[in-house]
């Protein structure tokens, strides 16, 4: 646990310290449960309403557009494949990642940056408390758990949104709609959805906390570090999702 004590914080050392902390989490008494609960509350619970609206509108809009094109092509049944791709497989996890980056990632980076300027991080170190264990690890765990739950929630709401729109053009009982939807999905789709959002959540939390911790002395560094955190996180999210799509569509399918 040396990364926060050296003259310059490097991502390699910081990442190694986080992995070490996560591996030894059972023995670590410094991990703050209150920080973990707050993170789950803020990233997960408080995002439910907004996420429901986004999911409902997005899936409804895509089904609306898809329906118009597919009817012309005589491929009406592909609407379920489009819904599976939107709500579960590809677009849902990507939208969640960007939304959580904008909402919680920046909050982490700003909060840690301000704590660094106010010497709160130094105070923890001086008290023999590892700042990584106390404030970073619980945030990472909270972010990953929240994003996994949000992905499932987004899918459920998205399917309802899709059903409402689809019902206008092609009235069906929900059970029949749901059966058709399930047929368009595989277990891999669900596994990839959870995996992609969890890895994205981990990446966002690590990158944003690294930039927050990288603030040195001045409060003016905080927005500069936030901008860099957003740019690096977007890059990481796109790489994760692109790799997942490559693996999913070329190897597994």
């Amino acid at each position: 646990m040396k990364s926060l004590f050296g003259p310059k914080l490097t991502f390699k050392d910081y990442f190694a310290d986080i992995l070490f902390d996560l591996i030894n989490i059972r023995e670590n008494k410094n991990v703050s449960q209150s920080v973990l609960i707050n993170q789950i509350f803020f990233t997960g619970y408080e995002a439910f309403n907004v996420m429901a609206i986004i999911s409902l509108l997005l899936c409804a809009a895509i089904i609306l557009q898809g329906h118009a094109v597919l009817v012309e092509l005589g491929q009406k049944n592909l609407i379920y494949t489009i819904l599976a791709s939107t709500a579960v497989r590809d677009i849902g996890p990507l939208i969640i990642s960007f939304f959580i980056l904008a909402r919680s990632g920046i909050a982490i980076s700003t909060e840690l940056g301000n704590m660094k300027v106010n010497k709160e991080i130094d105070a923890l170190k001086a008290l023999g408390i590892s700042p990584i264990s106390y404030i970073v690890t619980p945030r990472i765990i909270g972010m990953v758990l929240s994003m996994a739950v949000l992905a499932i929630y987004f899918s459920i709401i998205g399917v309802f949104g899709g059903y409402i729109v689809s019902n206008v053009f092609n009235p069906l009982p929900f059970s029949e709609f749901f059966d058709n939807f399930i047929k368009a999905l595989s277990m891999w789709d669900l596994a990839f959805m959870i995996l992609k959002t969890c890895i994205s959540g981990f990446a966002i939390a690590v990158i944003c906390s690294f930039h927050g911790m990288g603030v040195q002395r001045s409060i003016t560094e905080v927005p500069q570090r936030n901008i860099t955190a957003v740019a690096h996180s977007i890059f990481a999210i796109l790489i994760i999702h692109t790799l997942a799509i490559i693996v999913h569509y070329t190897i597994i399918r």
Partner: protein
Amino acid sequence: MFQLEKLHCTIDDYEYFDGISYTFSGGTLHTVSGHSGSGKSLFFSILAGVKSPNSGDIFFKEKSIFNSSFRTLQDLRKKFGIVFQLPALISNLSLRDNLKLTLRSEAEVLAIARDFQLEPYLNLRPSAISQGQLYRFALCRALLPNPEILLWDEPMINIDEFFHPLVDQKIAQLKARGSTIIFFTNRKTIVEKYGENRLILQARKLDRYEF
């Protein structure tokens, strides 16, 4: 007891300390002064163990501060009391929880809060109280573990004069127990009043401070 060995520190190609070696004896109050830019705050951070030097080490009870395992370091740090220039209280914890970070009992927390007339504010967050009260809480947090090393950056300045006799009494108790106390200050009045062993950072070295 608290020994610095060949501390070198360079930041952005500027050399702040060129092999500082010194032993701080126990039961004594030391003052460290230095002009602006002499590296006083950096020296404080290195002694507090929150920043590491480029080379050299600090030994406390013959254990290295910078080359021990993190667990050993955590144990050593629990014997330190550190008051920063800013109050540095954890903003998302209540003031009671801030004091409890020192792993002291509720009774001890209540006792020191009562001494410094802070008991009514224990359940509040740091943002809800005045600056003067914040500094008193920061001092309480440093004094709670009965530290064997007390480091205080800019001592007394932000503490109401009404509490100075109480602070003097607490410091006298620590000295009587053999603790090492180091004040980092540029104020001559503080150095004259408290400094039994007066030091100054100049020309990248730590020297005796003669007025």
